[in-house]
């Protein structure tokens, strides 16, 4: 005689409407309790987004500058003394097939001063280097002001400043007749005229705090013997590794172990990867905020269940099963958290985009950031809503109806 009395399931739109009752009728409260989750998700999305964007910015910069630059420097002899690169090294490197550019610098023992009146100790840590004529292009930088050395000025007492060197000397532009003092001390040396200031050289930061003069001038006025100390080699990109493997032996066949060969872009890439390590602190803070948000949601849902006893009683009398009441409150908690999560993702994305724009990076929001943020919000909502939902479902309908 029993007929089929399976309780019909609520359709999704009905469930969504029922689940949003509490949020629609108590908006301020819902907004405040979603705020904690919003802040946590925003922090996580922004941290991941900013780190990805800055990484992408650095990698794009490296890409622009090229990964085919190799640097050859003088290493140490077996006895721990500074080795010298052979005078013939630049010529030997030029003969390696895939090498497209080869430029070099030679260090001097001179200091650079703004004038003769500067105390001798105030060297600013600047080095004076002899440089070949195509150096700026080979290391991927260009002139910020003025012009670079040319075959004529390379023979004369003329200098070009690296970006940082210019800053340290307090020089921000080039005008005719401008000069600096190069010498061992402000007493022993001579004036060099300035012709240009370089932009920062990302792949060769040692250029930035250097004062560059031509090799002929260095030999003539600064007593340089012409040995290169740093050689910059550009090769066909897909041959870079092969070139790197033969460089040491090419430069100094007699003692290849006294030659250091490195790829600056690889160092920078490693640095870009290492940047992520700093993020864990901020991610931890975001997680704490999410936890606080979860406690807030659980609290607000528990209060909601107490306040809405009559609604629960009415719904039971209208035919809602315990399961439907449980689902309603669980869905409400998830909806609340999801709302916070969505706001948080939006805030995180906006702050990333704005900051990346200011830094001239391409804004990158990793999928793990926004998807992870939303997933975390749903998980938090479900966890925080579970206990209140079970309580609501356990409430006896008559008890719920009586407490008014």
């Amino acid at each position, binding site marked *: 005689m029993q007929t089929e009395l399976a309780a019909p399931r609520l359709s999704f739109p009905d469930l969504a409407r029922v689940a949003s009752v509490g949020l629609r009728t108590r908006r301020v409260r819902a907004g405040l309790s979603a705020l904690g989750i919003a802040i946590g998700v925003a922090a996580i999305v922004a941290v991941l987004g900013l780190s990805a964007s800055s990484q992408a910015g650095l990698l794009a910069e490296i890409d622009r500058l090229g990964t085919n630059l190799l640097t050859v420097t003088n290493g140490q002899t077996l006895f721990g003394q500074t080795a010298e690169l052979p005078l013939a090294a630049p010529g030997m490197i030029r003969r390696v097939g895939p090498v497209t550019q080869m430029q070099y610098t030679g260090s001097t023992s001179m200091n650079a001063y703004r004038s003769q009146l500067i105390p001798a100790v105030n060297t600013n840590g600047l080095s004076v280097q002899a440089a070949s004529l195509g150096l700026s292009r080979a290391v991927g930088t260009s002139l910020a002001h003025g012009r670079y050395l040319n075959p004529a000025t390379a023979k004369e007492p003329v200098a070009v400043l690296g970006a940082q060197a210019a800053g340290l000397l307090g020089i921000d532009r080039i005008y005719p007749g401008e000069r600096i003092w190069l010498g061992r001390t402000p007493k022993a040396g001579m004036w060099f005229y300035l012709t240009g200031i370089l932009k920062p050289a990302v792949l060769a930061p040692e250029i930035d705090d250097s004062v560059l003069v031509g090799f002929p001038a260095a030999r003539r006025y600064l007593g340089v013997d012409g040995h290169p100390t740093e050689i910059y080699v550009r090769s066909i990109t897909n041959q870079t590794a092969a070139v790197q493997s033969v460089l040491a032996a090419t430069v100094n066949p007699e003692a290849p172990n006294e030659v250091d060969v490195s790829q600056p872009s690889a160092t920078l890439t490693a640095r870009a990867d290492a940047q992520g390590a700093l993020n864990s602190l901020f991610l931890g803070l975001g997680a704490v905020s999410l936890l606080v948000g979860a406690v807030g949601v659980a609290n607000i849902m528990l209060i909601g269940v107490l306040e809405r006893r009559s609604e629960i009683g009415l719904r039971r009398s209208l*035919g809602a099963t315990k399961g439907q009441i449980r689902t309603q409150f669980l869905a409400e908690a998830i909806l609340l958290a999801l709302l916070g999560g969505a706001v948080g993702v939006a805030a995180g994305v906006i702050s990333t985009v704005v900051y990346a724009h200011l830094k001239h990076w391409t804004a990158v929001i990793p999928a793990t950031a926004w998807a992870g943020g939303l997933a975390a919000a749903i998980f938090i909502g479900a966890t925080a809503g579970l206990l209140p939902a079970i309580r609501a479902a356990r409430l006896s309908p008559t008890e719920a109806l009586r407490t008014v």
Partner: protein
Amino acid sequence: MISEAPTLETMQLPSSARIPVLELEDVSKTYGTNPPVPALQGVSFSVAASELVAVVGPSGSGKSTLLYLMGTLERPTSGRVWLTGLDVAEMEDRELATVRATRIGFVFQQFFLAEHSSLLDNVADGLLYAGVSANDRREQAADALAAVGLGERVKSRPPQLSGGERQRVAIARALVGAPAIVLADEPTGNLDSATGEQIMALIEELNGKGATIVVVTHERTTADRCPRRIQLLDGQVISDTVA
């Protein structure tokens, strides 16, 4: 066959052959164990289709307990309750919920309307758990509102209504979907006497159209308007009279 909802044919049977919509047999309800508090003892009666019955008694006489037992919101400690032929004792919670969703309508003293929803949505929610599509719910809700005289105000919200109008909405919500029985718990309790009169007139009118209604009340004047009165005292039926 017994369990099927009343159809036109069954409604037209002579009254002596009517199927009881609700039947209670020696029903007792005791709350708590230490000490046990008996709320109802040995209550038996049946309600036929299209009847209008008042359950009347002073406060503490077991009226509310009886209403909850009739409405399957509680189970009896002993005795049996049949609703449209279904034995309530044998049903699981989910099945009872479905019985409430499809066969019972409740009217409460406090109305219990959702203040932020329109009257139409409030009434349509009466069918929310009955497996009726949203469009059908709204259509039937509009008809039910028209039946209680609020057909023009489907878009209003409860705070814009007077107490009497709110109770009309609650009655429409109980009636929507034509349940086998409507259980009204002190439907005039929160209303002034004139408005209470109007609500009772509406209940009589709806009963006249075929609705089976049980009104639980402590007010004699309300009970006197019903053709059949079951009087409760200390959890026992002391009289069951038909006017």
